[in-house]
Each structure stands twice: as structure tokens, then as C-alpha cells.
């Protein structure tokens, strides 16, 4: 009986172990590393930051730094972090930034930045890298007083330029010390050299920038140009449509294993009785 007891311990140990190691990785749960644009039915809600659809979308939050990577720098900025929501419907996508700013000013501004295609680009305006051939970045720049979003490109400092073909629309709404700025575009465009293409399921890079355009006593703006709040690259993904094939394969595997088991045991029993 003792041998049998050990045997059952061994079996259960083995099973527990298999389940333990098979548990999916959960390495990225602690903090936001990615914006997840969930897939919605019936269209994204245009440029309206107060649309009810935004309440059902998961929120990611990313810390921002004063831009001290290149001159002219800034030591302290208004926006310390930015909350990001996003969604898409298979055709169009929308990203909403939400951040605190004590005053609404004409020069308040915010931007998203993406890499384009497979070429890596440095988060600081796609500045050249010594040993890696970099690509351009696509920048979507919203400014309060312009009441629109500019679709831009840069490849190195001082090369920022608006595209001739503008594909991005957007709108900012200021309320109770908070800016909510929505950017919308179609997931794909015809211009793969200048526009980031969003393929559902694929992780791409995203970075953020925010300017507090408050006018100081001196007449200068508090933040402008390279003096802004920034992040380096994080991830963005348009979620793929639900895919149930993994459940199907799992069910099939359960069936096969059960049949396999049944056959083996029958064979064992036959072997014993003869």
C-alpha cells in the first residue's frame, strides 16, 4: 500500500506542476506599458471627448518628464502624467488624451508620435542614430487655438513638417482643470511612407508630448517648442477581433487525449487478462 500511496503523490505532484508551469505569463500586469485600442461595434464616436463610449474603454496612464534630452531644455512642466484611452471599429480609430492643466490657454497643445513601418525611429523627433539606420516619425499635433490636428513628419531635429495630405482630425475640450483631446484617423491610409499604419493585433510604438501654453508675466509662453512634457516610447495596439480558435483547438485536444487514454487502458487490461 505504501508504494501505491507514493505513486498517487507522484501523480498529483506531476499534475500540479504541469498546471503551475502552463499558467500564461503575467509579467506586464503591474503598470501601463501599452495603450489598448479596444474594438467597438457601430463606429468610433467621432471627435467628441464626452461621448459615452469612452467610459467603457480601459485607461492607461503614463508618466511624463520635463524635456531635458536636448536643448533648449525645461526643468519643470505642468503635466506630470497623461491618461490614454483608445478604440477602433476595424475602419477608424480614436485616441483620447486626458491630463490636468490649471488654466485653459490658446497655446495649450498636445501630440502623439508613432514610428512608421518597420524602421526604428528615435523618440526625440526621429533624430539620427550612429549605428542604426532610422526612419521618420509620424506626429499628430493638436493646438487649442488652431482647433484642429496637424498630421506631420520629422526625421531629426528641425525637420518637423506638416504633410500635404492631412488625414487626422481631432478636438480638445477643457473642463474643470482637465483637457480631453481626441485624435481620429482611419486605421490605414494609402501613404505608407508618411503615415503610420495600424494593423489590429500588432504592437507598435507610441510617445506623448504636452505643452502648457500659459503666458508668463514676461510675455513668454511657459512651455513651447522643445520645452514641453514628454515620454519616450511605449506600446500601442489596436486589439484584434475576438478569435475563438484557441478554444476550439483546446476542445479538440481534450477529445483526442480522452480517446488516447481509453485505447491505452483497454490495451493494458487485455494484456493483463491474457
Amino acid at each position, binding site marked *: *500500500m*505504501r*508504494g*501505491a500511496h507514493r*505513486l*498517487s503523490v*507522484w*501523480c*498529483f505532484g506531476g*499534475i500540479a*506542476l*504541469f*498546471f*503551475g*508551469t*502552463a*499558467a*500564461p505569463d503575467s509579467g506586464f500586469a503591474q503598470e501601463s*506599458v*501599452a495603450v489598448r485600442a479596444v474594438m467597438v461595434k457601430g463606429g468610433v464616436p467621432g471627435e467628441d471627448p464626452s461621448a459615452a463610449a469612452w467610459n467603457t474603454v480601459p485607461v492607461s496612464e503614463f*508618466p511624463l*518628464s*520635463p524635456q*531635458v*534630452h*536636448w*536643448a533648449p531644455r525645461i526643468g*519643470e512642466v505642468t503635466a*506630470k502624467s497623461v491618461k490614454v484611452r483608445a478604440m477602433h471599429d476595424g475602419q477608424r480609430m480614436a485616441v483620447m488624451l486626458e491630463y490636468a492643466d490649471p488654466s485653459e490657454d490658446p497655446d495649450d497643445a498636445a501630440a502623439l508620435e508613432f514610428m512608421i513601418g518597420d524602421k*526604428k*525611429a*528615435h*523618440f526625440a523627433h526621429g*533624430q*539620427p*542614430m*550612429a*549605428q*542604426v539606420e*532610422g526612419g521618420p516619425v509620424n506626429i499628430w499635433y493638436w493646438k487649442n487655438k488652431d482647433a484642429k490636428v496637424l498630421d506631420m513628419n520629422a526625421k531629426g531635429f528641425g525637420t518637423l513638417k506638416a504633410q500635404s495630405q492631412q488625414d487626422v482630425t481631432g478636438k480638445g475640450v477643457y473642463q474643470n482643470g482637465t483637457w480631453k483631446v481626441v485624435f481620429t484617423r482611419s486605421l490605414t491610409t494609402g501613404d505608407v511612407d508618411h503615415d503610420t499604419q495600424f494593423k489590429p493585433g500588432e*504592437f507598435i510604438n507610441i510617445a506623448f508630448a504636452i505643452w502648457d501654453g500659459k503666458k508668463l508675466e514676461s510675455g513668454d509662453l511657459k512651455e513651447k517648442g522643445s520645452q514641453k*512634457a*514628454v515620454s*519616450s*516610447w511605449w506600446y500601442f495596439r489596436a486589439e484584434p477581433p475576438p478569435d475563438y*480558435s*484557441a478554444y476550439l*483547438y*483546446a*476542445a479538440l*485536444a*481534450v*477529445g483526442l*487525449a*480522452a480517446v488516447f*487514454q481509453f485505447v491505452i*487502458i483497454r490495451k*493494458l*487490461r487485455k494484456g*493483463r487478462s491474457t
Partner: protein
Amino acid sequence: MKRKGRALKGGALLSPAILIVGMYLFLKFVLPLFTAPLPASLIFLYLALTVTGILIFNTLSGGSMEAFFGPIFRFLSGDGQAGPMKVARLLVLILFPLLVGWQTYASTAPSDHPPAENRTIHPAPPGEFVGLSNPVPNTPENVMMGKGLFAAFCSPCHGNFDGMGPAAKGFTPPPANFVDPGTIAQLQESYVFWRIKNGGVGLPIEGMPWKSAMPRWEVELKDEQIWKIIMGEYDGAHQKPRTWE
């Protein structure tokens, strides 16, 4: 006599069990002390290899065949079982297909995680930055000047040598913590000179230069200033540069 025989057969299963559990503990807890934690799929693969090895070993060494497989076959066929053994057998028969199903699900379910980041923190420097020595004499005044420059240019990100400056939070990877023995204490001055002069954008592809916020200081600082900063940096972080014995 019979009793003893049974106990022995159980024993034949005990050492493989210990081996597998030991292997698991090693992969899960001991190895990560030296490398990055292993992904679950890799642990599973190694355990599967261990199990296969044990099976092959027992199949080849003919004498232990019956000792090893006998109890397993008897258990599975369920002949003359009663009580807890019967329940155990039933559980195994139910759990095995479920386990296979779970494994299949785990390996075919689409991944929800960003691509794994395998950034090399200390990639090889370009040839011209190998073996340079600090041309600035190590005097208290020079160290002081280096610390002053560090406070002016580097502390917004690297803080008080600890990587926790007021501008550190928005950047991934985070600014290096020089007090940590894993950064400048591992490096020669020549290497540190390269990193400061050429910055994040000077890294080779395995260092993921597109992510680094480390500025390219050759744009703003003279070589002599950089060498002084290096002295101030080691002194402030209470570290010594690595030298080749």
C-alpha cells in the same frame, strides 16, 4: 516479503519524482538568480525533456523496466483497486485530458503582451573608444569641477547619482543608477566616455538606441569636461572604474 517488494517499486518512482520537482525548482527559482526569469513555455519544454530522459533511461536499463512501469500500468488499468486509489485513478483520467487541453490553449491563444524586451545594457563599444585613459589628473579640484558639471547637466535625470532625478519618470529605460554595482562599477572609464559622448543614439542595435533618453553630450560638452564628469561621477557614486588586471 510481498510488502517489501511493493515498497521497492514505489521507490523506483520516487527518485524520478524528486528529479522532476528538483529540476522545476531549479528552473523556476535558482536559474533566475543568474539570468532573466525563464518564460513558462521554456520551463515546460525543459521539464518535458527531463521526463522524456527519465522514460528513455528506464526503458533502456531493462532490469528496472518492470519496477518502473509495473506500478504505473497497474494503477492505470485499475485492476482490483479500492478506496483512495480508485479516486486517484479517476482523477488522473479526468485531469490528463484537461491538462492537454489547457496546454493546447496556452500555446495557441493569441499573445496579449508587448514583444519581450531583450535590451543589452552594455553592448560592445566602437573600436576607437577601447582603451582610452582619463587624461585629466585626478585632483580634488578636478573631481569637484566634475561634480559641478554633473549637477548642472546630468542630475535632472540621474539625480544624486541614483537615477532618480526630477525628469527621470517619463523615460524607459530609466536613467542609469550609478550607485548600483551593475552600472559604471562594471565599466572602464573609456567605455563610460563613449556612452556620455555619443549618448543613447550611439548605441548599436542590440542596445535599442531609439528608446534611450541619454543625450549625446558631444553636442554640448568638450572632451575634457566629460573626463572631469567621469571622475566626479565615480566619486559621487562611491564606485571605482573597472580596470583590466
